[in-house]
């Protein structure tokens, strides 16, 4: 048994693909669609074209309208890069809450031509957005690779699913506006690809780097460790606890742990050496101590506003135990039950739970799990059962829209919609997310014979 599974690994999510391929291509799709996906060029060209159009449009809007296309965050990054280029700390820029690596990566945005060429200078300033957009494309390509190699999908079908990411207007908009979330997409997808391809050292490097970059990828560590060598606990049933523990510690797991920890620590030591306390404060401690609870999708948001204004309230404080359900789900229960069965879907569910249960939740965080959707959807009940799929999508959009409407009334019309409007709609959106999470979880458990 164990031997056979070793051979067939890593095909954990392989089998259903043919079926879903059928279900997708069985739809009255035109020959145009088939030929569009039959070679890589049309998909990647149109994904690139979409981003180029948005980039150029953004430049036009920025130059001609007082309302800017470029995200505020991009100005934060590029300001920080300018400080770095002058030999100063990126944290000299207020609200820069990222690793100095991001500012370093964006150093080309601070370069200027001599003699001055306005066009080239604008291109240089936008080079960060180009980098984020390229990161999108690479993430899409990695999605295709994972689908082909590990889900045993044919290339055309794999591209069809990768298009969910590559041609997604939300993804393209976020990266061309200059938000760095696209970098996370490529990092996390590269991590998954490395793990599935058993490139352990590379996976360790990516994991350590990802956690240094944005903290949240640490949730993938337990599922990857659990997934690695999943046959090695076989035959341990009768052994003592100590024996099981020894059996659990395999060379691959050890290597992943050592490499990722070493990468994470080394990066932090270097950054701390270079930038000192402000690096730790802004990159890490800020997320623990922050009290800027401007309205966001988190179910805790209104409660945190209330609690932060009256810090002496007695009794059990929700905000101090809020991390429990979040971490229990995303770092313990989901990895434990799901990782060995279907690593990509487990990572999707982890991210989904992490974002839904987080104390702060904005729409940029949705990108964190969207990158996994093309890997999960082929075998999801959302695509198998169109009614369920449409209901989930509509509920997700509508419950978000209801919240946005309340947020708009507060932010722009000045109506006090905190209670009950914002509170109830955030709880509604949260519960819809939990319902969707439940279906994702069930899909992994559902034997493929159901298909």
């Amino acid at each position, binding site marked *: *048994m164990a031997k056979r*599974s070793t051979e067939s690994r890593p095909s*954990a999510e392989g089998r259903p693909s043919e079926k879903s391929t059928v279900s997708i291509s069985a739809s009255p799709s035109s020959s145009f669609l088939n030929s569009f996906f039959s070679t890589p060029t049309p998909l990647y060209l149109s994904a690139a074209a979409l981003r180029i159009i948005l980039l150029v449009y953004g430049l036009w809007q920025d130059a*001609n309208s*007082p309302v*800017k296309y470029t995200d505020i965050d991009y*100005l*934060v990054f590029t300001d920080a890069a300018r400080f770095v280029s002058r030999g100063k700390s990126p944290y000299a820029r*207020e*609200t820069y809450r990222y690793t100095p690596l991001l500012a370093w990566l964006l150093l080309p945005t601070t370069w200027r031509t001599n003699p001055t060429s306005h066009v080239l200078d604008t291109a240089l300033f936008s080079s960060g957005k180009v980098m984020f957009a390229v990161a999108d494309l690479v993430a899409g390509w990695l999605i295709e690779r994972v689908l082909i190699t590990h889900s045993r999908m044919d290339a055309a079908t794999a591209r069809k699913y990768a298009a969910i990411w590559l041609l997604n207007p939300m993804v393209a908009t976020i990266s061309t506006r200059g938000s760095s979330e696209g970098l996370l997409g490529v990092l996390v997808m590269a991590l998954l690809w490395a793990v599935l391809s058993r490139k352990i050292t590379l996976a360790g490097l990516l994991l350590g780097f990802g956690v240094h970059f944005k903290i949240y990828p640490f949730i993938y560590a337990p599922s990857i460790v659990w997934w690695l060598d*999943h*046959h090695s606990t*076989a035959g341990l*049933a009768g052994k003592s606890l100590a024996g099981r523990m020894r059996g659990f510690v395999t060379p691959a797991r050890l290597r992943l742990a050592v490499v990722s920890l070493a990468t994470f620590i080394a990066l932090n030591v270097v950054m701390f050496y270079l930038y000192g306390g402000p690096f730790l404060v802004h990159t890490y401690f800020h997320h623990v101590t*922050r*009290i*800027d*609870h*401007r309205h966001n999708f988190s*179910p805790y948001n*209104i409660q945190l*506003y*209330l609690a*932060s*204004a009256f810090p002496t309230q007695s009794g059990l404080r*929700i905000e101090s135990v*809020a991390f429990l359900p979040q971490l*229990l*789900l995303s770092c313990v*229960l989901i990895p*434990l*039950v*799901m990782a*060995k*069965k279907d690593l990509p879907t487990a990572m999707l569910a982890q991210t989904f*739970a992490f974002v*839904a*249960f987080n104390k702060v939740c904005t729409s940029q965080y949705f990108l964190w799990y969207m990158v996994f959707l093309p890997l999960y959807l082929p075998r999801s009940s959302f695509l198998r059962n169109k009614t369920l799929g449409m209901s989930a999508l509509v509920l997700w959009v509508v419950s978000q829209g209801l919240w946005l409407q309340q947020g708009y009334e*507060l*932010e*722009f*019309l*000045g109506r*006090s919609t*905190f*209670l*009950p409007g914002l*509170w109830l709609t955030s709880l509604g959106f*949260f*519960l819809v997310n*939990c319902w969707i*999470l*439940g*279906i994702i*979880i069930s899909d*992994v*458990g559902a*034997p*493929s*014979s159901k298909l």
Partner: protein
Amino acid sequence: MRERITFVQRLGDALDPSVLQIAGGVISGPEIAAAREDRLTFATDEFPDELWLLLRGIHQLHIRWASADAYEAVSPFLSRLPPGFHAFLTPESKSYTESPKLCAILADIFGKLDCSTPAESFTSLPHDRFSHSTSLQYYHPLDDLSHFIRYAKEKLCPPADASCVTRVDSLAKASSLDISYDEISHALKVTATWPYQRQPVQVTSRPPFRTEVGILSADKPQTLEPHELGISGLLTVLGQDPEPKPTLFSFASRHRDAESAFSVKWMEPTGLHPTLQIRLDSNTLPKEADGAFCSPHAYLTLPRGVFADKYQLSDGLFLASKNLTALRYTSQPVDLEAPEYAMKRWGSAILVELTPPKETEGKEAWTAEIPLHLRYLSPAEGGYAGLKVPYPVVFWACAAEEGTKFPNNPFERANLGYDGLFGPRTVFWHVEPRPEGNSLMTTLNVPVLDLAKSQHVNVGTAIAVLLGFAWAAWKLFGVFATSGYGREEGSKAKTGKKPSEDKKKQ
């Protein structure tokens, strides 16, 4: 102590000396329409003990209070401040700023100020730019001087001194009160002004103190230079001069009258990003300012509930769309995220250069808009909280000619917050604030969490989170129960890693 009392009438309203009676240290005359300024100068040894405590460890302290009642300025009392309580401080040492002493004494004197220590509550001023400015700034939208009046009557007036009590009481109608101390002169100057109104000329000296009374009016003698103000009238030192001495003098003044007005309003709907619209009724300056390089500015003291984002105010197109040229100064630091109730700093001061329309034949009214952002305020019953924001000071700043010396002005007033942001030879042509009502304090209606509806928030949030968690956990348990935590093998219970079944077997 020395005392100088000045009545200033309008141009051409001179008083005939014959209607004044001077006898036994008392000057009295008919009712006249005038603005009044009282300036008292105390030597260090005349301070009450509490003030001594306050001033030890200080190089300079300038307290400025301006009334929220709109008033028409009379030359030479032309300088303006946003209404409320301002303090400008240069301490001797850093340790002084870490002590709560100053804040406690100021609160004792002026009432509740919301200040903990200078280090926590004050903002820094760019003292490296021009040496004449102080290093720390504080502001609070203090409505009136009632607490100060009560304090002065109890602690500063000699017992059973009815005239002292009367004079202190009259501060209730003052348009401004300045208290200035600096270590070098070892003197404390207290200056109060009252707006232009009908009032009797009646002053009694308090021997042995010197009391000088001026009954003056603005004047424009032939020899007046464009950069000067002219004053003429009668000066009397009580108990010394048997009759008033006529006088005529002129001096360069840092503060001038732009002879135009402005008003502000919050653009509706204000939301969480209110925009203050400044409406000026003229884009030109009096001809005396001809030839100088001038540009209009607005100086705002923003209580901490509202702030300007310096990063937003750095884009040329955006600024131009609001008729702004540039954000010239913002006090540091300004937290761009924290809620109001988590902050100790008083707020922030900003100086914005406005873009007037191109010069036209006649006057042209125009507007400029200053985009601001609200912080979250404390939850309150009803879901809304009022946030007081004072009128800005609006002026045209012009570069004066080389060699102009302002300190020759007997009515010189410095340390106003904005003057230190300009070079020492800048002239401020003040635009008069003319609100629709009478108040120079605006109120923003800020949406906050409604406390009356908040009783279920904790329980409701907890239930929703537990519900969501339980649902996900239940689904996980479902998967676990049917196929364990092991790898999916296509059919059930084939692998050797089925803990649920293994355990059952054990």
